[in-house]
């Protein structure tokens, strides 16, 4: 036991001596949280709009004024010709061009239909649809003001945003950042640090010493485990006090599920270190097999529901997916543990299985 403690101390000294890495281990989650919290949003605002008005009448002017006054729109240009329309869209001056029919007012007065074309830059289909929707409802709004009699039988939708009334993207990203950072520190960094000792040959020295091999591994894992816990706490504090993301559920359970997830990650790191012989290999394996899937298939950024069935299945094998879902449920939805048994069971099973396999493999390598 005493040996173990002195081993762990040695590992801590290694990590603390490397100031730059220490700084990053703590700075990285902070930077990611701030970026995600403040900079990264998909909210559509500042819609640049150009108008092509061949009619120049009272009603088109009123619609244009409504566009100019609305806070979501920036009226950039009144392009008059077809060619202009193409130009403002292609050089990015406008995201959307509103084209009125000729004799717009006349047609309407005569009780005929008058057309408006909304030409959108649909490179990004999501925002294009939202922009078209905004513009449409704005025009409809202006039109309903003209109607002399109040339109009969309009249904008023009353929209409520559950859990995240301001629709902040931080709510969605905080659990994702936790999942990613823990994977990075526990799996990738641990595997590199073990393989490094293999590469420099010091691992052999440790293994021929009378210390039990499991202690050697444990002493490698403990410092990263501690740093991971510090990071989880830092992320939670930042989320609550800086990003104002609520922490509705139980902190104890968040920590419990984080411990299980950290165990999974450490086991993965150990597994990689038994397979890889060089640091480059460890980096590549953990990058390709752990980090990429954790980022892409876990639902952190990209919703799992959108994936083709095959990938959706594949994502079930990714620990980060279960962890992120669990943290979302606990933290943001404030659900109690009875809603989480599935995530808990899956993660515990993964932790047990991976620890078993990696320790077994590690022992085999020794013989």
């Amino acid at each position: 036991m005493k040996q173990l403690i002195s081993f762990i101390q040695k590992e801590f000294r290694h990590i603390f001596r490397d100031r730059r890495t220490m700084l990053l281990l703590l700075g990285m989650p902070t930077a990611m949280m701030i970026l995600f919290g403040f900079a990264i949003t998909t909210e559509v605002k500042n819609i640049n709009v150009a108008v092509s008005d061949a009619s120049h009448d009272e009603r088109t002017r009123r619609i244009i004024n409504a566009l100019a006054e609305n806070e979501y729109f920036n009226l950039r240009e009144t392009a008059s010709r077809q060619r202009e329309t193409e130009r403002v869209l292609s050089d990015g001056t406008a995201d959307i061009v509103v084209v009125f029919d000729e004799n717009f007012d006349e047609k309407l007065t005569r009780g005929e239909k008058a057309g408006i074309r909304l030409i959108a830059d649909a490179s990004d289909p999501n925002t294009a649809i939202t922009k078209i929707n905004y513009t449409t409802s704005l025009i409809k709004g202006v039109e309903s003001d003209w109607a002399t009699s109040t339109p009969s039988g309009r249904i008023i939708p009353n929209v409520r945003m559950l859990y995240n009334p301001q629709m902040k993207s931080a709510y969605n990203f905080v659990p994702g950042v936790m999942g990613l950072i823990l994977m990075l520190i526990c799996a990738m960094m641990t595997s590199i640090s073990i393989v490094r000792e293999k590469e420099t040959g010091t691992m052999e020295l440790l293994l021929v010493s009378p210390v039990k091999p499991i202690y050697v591994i444990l002493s490698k894992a403990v410092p990263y485990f501690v740093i991971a816990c510090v990071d989880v706490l830092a992320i939670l504090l930042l989320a609550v006090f800086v990003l104002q993301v609520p922490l509705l559920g139980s902190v104890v359970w968040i920590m419990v599920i984080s411990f299980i997830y950290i165990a999974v990650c450490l086991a993965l790191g150990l597994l990689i270190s038994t397979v890889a012989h060089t640091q480059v290999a460890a980096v590549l394996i953990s990058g390709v097999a752990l980090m990429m899937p954790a980022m892409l298939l876990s639902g952190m950024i990209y919703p799992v529901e959108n994936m083709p069935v095959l990938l959706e299945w594949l994502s079930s094998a990714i620990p980060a997916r279960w962890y992120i879902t669990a943290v979302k449920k606990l933290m943001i939805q404030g659900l109690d543990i009875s809603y989480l048994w599935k995530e808990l069971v899956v993660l515990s099973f993964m932790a047990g299985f991976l620890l078993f396999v990696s320790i077994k493999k590690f022992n085999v390598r020794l013989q």
Partner: protein
Amino acid sequence: MLLKYLLEKEFKQIRRNPFLPRLIAAYPIFAMMVFPWVVDLEVRDINLCVIDNDRSAYSRRLVAQASASRYFHLSELAATYDEAMESIQRNQSDVILEINPGFERELMRGDCPDVMISANSVNGTRGGFAGNYLSQIIADFSADIARESPGSLIEITPQYRYNPHLDYKNYVIPALMVILLTIICGFLPALNIVGEKEKGTIEQINVTPVKKYLFILSKLIPYWIIGVFILTVCIGLAALTYGLIPAGNLLVIYLFAVLFVITCSGLGLVVSNYSSTMQQAMFVMFFFTIVMLLMSGALTPVKSMPQWAQTITWFNPLRYFVEAMRAVYLKGSGFWDLRTQCFVLLGIAGFFSLWAVWSYKKK
């Protein structure tokens, strides 16, 4: 002349590495085949839970219209709000539509009945979209009913330019190529010099009279070539499997790619020069890559960012390359349209290359 020998050595080392050649060949293929299916922020398959307290002809018509739309499908008919919330909590539904009793009666009377929409917005984008879109369906439904009496005369027709089928993949694939190049041409050089430091071979180089810039150049050039190779594979695969062919000139894409790869590998070497262990290099590189990626507009629009964040993106090489790739691929922009991006990227590329040479110390 000397460069030839230096390069030969770098290429041999890459070729003999048990992982690198396989990675360089397989990764782009894997990424291009899998990621476009994953990297899909398009909101669809929204599960709709309905509480119909009216159970009238009109309310049923509204529900039918909502569930028939492209985005929603009816997941559950709940009797009470609690039951519906339970369904949200179990992740079985994303949005609740609650119709009050007397809905039809009020409509017939010419009143304005309320309907409640409650969207799960843990994922703000998805929740917001669901709320908006459901409101839109209800407005259309209103208009349909009103059309039976005199109604709207303005006919609005949307037209979608550059991506008429609203295929999210077309938007994402050009950005994906950028991400791939960043990863391969950034991380591999970052591991290179620090690797020689850990092995001790760099010491031997440092006592030779080799010129700094030549040595650094021999480290960079392989990644430039690898980058162009990977891009070619990606462009080919995008055309073959997704039918995505650049609307503009391929040469413009390659011009930008070369500038970008120079930047990336330069940054990688700078990190490598300042690191003393591979672990450190990895970690620093990971940090920069994540930040640059998030601030590039590849995943979320730059325009949605607050002003200070947009200012940061001016210094981000990824931003210019992503913009250029999308513009050439979808809009068919030419060199002249993208000249600003090109010159800025050229500047950044020069900066990192010089820094890479400068930060390599032979002492």
